[in-house]
């Protein structure tokens, strides 16, 4: 059984990635990435398709093996810091026909704290309910998940991450395929989390909205192109280097 880790929190950086290389069947997906994400920021990971955005997130979470480099979360390995991390996978990665309701999905966020075998009880259910409430989904608690709209499903996923009560959140493309109301709810949530001192890292692909939603940015295309505060990093020059002047964007170039 896992106990919550009580390692001191590094005040400066929530995530430190050093010389990270990730390969799929020995072909590099991420190459020699060095970056650090300051605590208390809203950071977007931006780059073209196949740039390794999701892979970077999964490598930080310890979900894919690293070929080289190190990752630290608040100064320790991600293995030790699981309890401090919340994760929102892509909505398309699960089967929404699964026989379960919104409340139950959100309750899954407590499984990490519960550890093996122990079942969620009243306290966990209540916390799940509160999280649904916060996402404006309380009325849908007992709705079968396939009967929710795309935006509502995304809010359920976010509520599940809230229940994890983490210090650091990772969200994989939360804005994809959601309605305007959900988009606004997600923005509110992100700002709220930041105001409470949490750090949020989001894989994002919409260049227009990025500067309005986030204060930090990581520009990625297999290698890290640039990272830092939005104002100084999200420049035309850096974007051109990320997306290339056309020729560099073909997939063959990766292999």
């Amino acid at each position, binding site marked *: 059984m896992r106990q919550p880790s009580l390692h001191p929190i590094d005040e400066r950086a929530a995530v430190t990635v*050093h*010389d990270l*290389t990730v*390969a799929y*069947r*020995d*072909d*590099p997906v991420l*190459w*020699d990435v*060095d970056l650090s994400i300051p605590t208390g920021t809203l950071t977007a990971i931006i780059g073209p398709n196949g740039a390794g955005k999701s892979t970077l997130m999964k490598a930080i979470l310890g979900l894919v093996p*690293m*070929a*080289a*480099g*190190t990752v630290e979360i608040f100064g320790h390995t991600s293995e030790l810091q699981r309890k401090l991390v919340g994760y929102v996978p892509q909505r398309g990665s699960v089967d929404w026909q699964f026989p379960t309701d919104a409340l139950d999905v959100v309750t899954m966020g407590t499984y990490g704290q519960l550890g093996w075998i122990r079942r969620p009880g009243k306290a966990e259910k209540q916390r799940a309910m509160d999280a649904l409430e916060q996402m404006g989904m309380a009325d849908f608690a007992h709705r079968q998940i396939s009967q929710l709209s795309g935006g509502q499903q995304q809010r359920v996923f976010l509520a599940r991450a809230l229940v994890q009560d983490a210090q650091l959140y990772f969200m994989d493309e939360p804005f994809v395929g959601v309605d305007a109301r959900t988009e606004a709810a997600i923005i509110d949530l992100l700002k709220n989390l930041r105001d409470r001192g949490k750090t949020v890292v989001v894989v994002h692909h919409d260049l227009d909205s990025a500067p309005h939603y986030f204060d930090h940015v990581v520009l990625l*295309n*297999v*290698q890290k*192109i640039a990272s830092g505060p939005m104002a100084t990093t999200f420049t035309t020059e850096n974007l051109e*280097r*990320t997306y*290339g*002047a056309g020729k*560099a964007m073909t997939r063959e*170039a*990766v*292999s």
Partner: protein
Amino acid sequence: MTSGTVILLTGILCAMACALPGTFLILRRMAMMTDAISHAILPGLVFGYWLAGSANLIVGAVGATAAAILTVTLVEALQRTRRVRGAEAMGIVFPAMFALGTILISRYFANVHLDTDAILYGNIEFSAFERLVWSGRDLGPQSLWVMSILLFINITTLTLLYKELKISTFDPELAQSLGFSPVLIHYLLMLLLSVTTVGAFTAVGAILVVALVIVPAATAYLLTDRLIEMMVGSALIGALAAIGGYWLAMGIDSSIAGGIVTMAGAFFGLALLFSPNQGLVAQRHRARLNKQRFALDLLVMHLFTHERTADEYSESSLGHIGAALHWSPDEAMRTIQRASDRGMVVHANGNVVLTEQGRHYVQRLSVMNRVQVQ
């Protein structure tokens, strides 16, 4: 003809006839439909025999084909209710049909000529003794006639519909737009599969039909990427399996159908291991080369990134390289050796330094071309 020759010929013809449609089933990811059909024809066969009052080949075949088509229709109807997925629909329909067939046999048609073991593994052993008799004349072994006709039907149909099948398999929407209805082609293929299954059923039994349809085609698919080669290849592999399996079964005095499938399985295993492109051995070899190249890339890239930076000295020490790149000391030494053999690095005093040639190599690395690095 000796009885051995008849059995061998029946096996070869049967294996070739089955393998041909198998190619398309595999490419359309419908291999398990063969399994469903081969079991589900049982009640139709029994019903046909009952109607004819004897094990009449034609009536039995008509009944079995009807049952096969009923199965395909039922599976698709269930799927269309959107309450079950395709695989589940198959897994519900074919056991029900098979169960129905078994009950019919045991309950009402115990006198019908149908041995339950033969349902599962056929009786190719007796193929020389069942003769085709037409108005009093012995025209030779019935199984040879059946298998020859079957092979003829399959070759003709697949040759005539080759273009249509090919296009509707790879791009159903294009096929539709060109006026070849993918639905019609789908049902034609299902009909062909049903006829093949029914014909081969008597020789090798229900489950081994599945093997002869799927396994040679899967083996050929491991060896080639071209459709026409895959079809011819699967027929050849099927024929070889029939020959090898016959001798294997004779050698240890056991089921010939079992021997044929075992041989087909052995060929599949060989292809899986040794196919030049898809084979596991070749893949392993490629992975090793790739890993070495990748390790080399990693090393020079690491050195390149830290060149002329504050931590250059510490990052390029022998000990640190291994730790940073997750290598054992052995692995690190081997890679550094390989790099210095190629003149990309030199190492002295416990530090590794990039050469001009190494720097040049880094700049040509494919990942570097992806983005413009200053």
